């Protein structure tokens, strides 16, 4: 179908964009890559009265290192992040997971800020950012604040963004020596939405796991961590038995949704297999 009518605003700067959001916050929406919003408009699932197109706002797509953090502008495209040497070096979990996000033409337009604001439970990046303890930088015309990724995602297609607020940047702590990362996923075809995805970060020191973080995609809520399973891993040698036990625990801990191609039981099975693979790969990379 065709999208419903709307008024189009194209701010040339961040203050202009925030102004427009303050004016139209209740009925307006930001247009970033358009790769989730425009399908929903074409399907008439949403009918925003005003679209605020941020694509020409300068300085919003940077990828840089600032102190101990990788800083990613909200408008950084999936394609730029997939190809970024900084991301590969400082957030290998994101680099690994991005191989699974959409197809070339989707990645040319889609943005990280739009992706997390959309908060699709099947999306990879909410799980990645939760596992990495990233923070989300948010601004309105009046104030700016920082939200931990774990608190940003409040439910399927729901975030902690208030009316008039937009995401401006994402901050990820830099990967440390001794850390290993891996993303494993099952999708119908590579580039389709995940049936289940598991992202793992482990830190190994003196042959023992000192920190573990597991984020899952394809479950009921985006950006979910498996904290009980993580606790089981700390102190183990991440040997085959520890990994198998953790993978079984992950299977129980997830809260799967049912989707067209995968019911909840199947998703649990996927999670066990994917978690075992991701844990082993992350452990090997941590050495």
């Amino acid at each position: 179908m065709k999208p419903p009518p709307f008024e189009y605003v194209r701010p040339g700067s961040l203050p202009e964009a925030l102004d427009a959001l303050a004016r139209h916050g209740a009925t307006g929406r930001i247009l970033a890559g358009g790769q989730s919003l425009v399908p929903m408009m074409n399907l008439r699932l949403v009918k925003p009265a005003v679209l605020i197109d941020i694509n020409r706002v300068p300085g919003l797509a940077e990828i840089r290192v600032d102190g101990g953090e990788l800083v990613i502008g909200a408008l950084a495209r999936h394609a730029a992040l997939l190809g970024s040497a900084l991301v590969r070096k400082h957030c290998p979990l994101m680099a690994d997971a991005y191989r699974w996000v959409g197809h070339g033409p989707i990645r040319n337009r889609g943005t990280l800020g739009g992706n997390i604001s959309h908060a699709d439970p099947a999306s990879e990046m909410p799980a990645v950012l939760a596992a990495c303890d990233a923070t989300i930088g948010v601004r309105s015309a009046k104030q700016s604040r920082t939200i931990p990724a774990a608190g940003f995602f409040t439910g399927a297609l729901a975030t902690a963004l208030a009316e008039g607020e937009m995401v401006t940047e994402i901050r990820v702590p830099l990967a440390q020596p001794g850390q290993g990362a891996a993303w494993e996923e099952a999708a119908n075809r590579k580039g389709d939405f995940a049936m289940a995805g598991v992202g793992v970060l482990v830190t190994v020191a003196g042959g023992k796991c000192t920190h573990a973080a597991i984020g899952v995609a394809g479950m009921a809520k985006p950006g979910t961590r498996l904290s009980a399973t993580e606790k089981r891993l700390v102190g183990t040698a991440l040997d085959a038995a520890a990994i198998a036990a953790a993978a079984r625990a992950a299977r129980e801990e997830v809260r799967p949704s049912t989707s067209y191609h995968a019911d909840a039981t199947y998703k649990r099975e996927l999670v066990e297999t994917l978690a075992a693979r991701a844990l082993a790969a992350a452990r090997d990379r941590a050495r």
Partner: protein
Amino acid sequence: MALIPINVTVNGTRFERAVEPRRLLADFLREDLDLKATHIGCEHGVCGACTVLVAGEAVRSCLTFAVQADGCEVRTADGLAQAGKLSPLQQAFWEKHGLQCGYCTSGMMMVASELLERNARPTKAEIEEAVSSNLCRCTGYYNIVESVQRAVELMQEGAK
């Protein structure tokens, strides 16, 4: 809704038009400019039949508003043939039977155009990954992949 004036260069020709904000780039090309090579399949970004190049990048024209292309260079499959002569990509699709019903073909060729411009000698796996963004329900993709491989050969012969 008030119309918004835009100017867009399509396949080298500059067009000035006024559009409704909700006008999709796909409809702008087909209806306002009468350039019918760009096909519309699913209208939610999944099938890729409407893929065009904007500023050299492959994008879904069903997920892009025409107003967003204001000031941009757009390329469509209408512009592939030069002076009535098939481009190497078109020639290759013809030789290798890269199409059956033809509905996905223009989108496939635009995805392949982007790939070949970035990477003059893609591997088979790279070609497969690129064309997997678009749906073809006839060919099973074998002939499409072979067509892109053949286009690589033709372009190299042409460059000699």
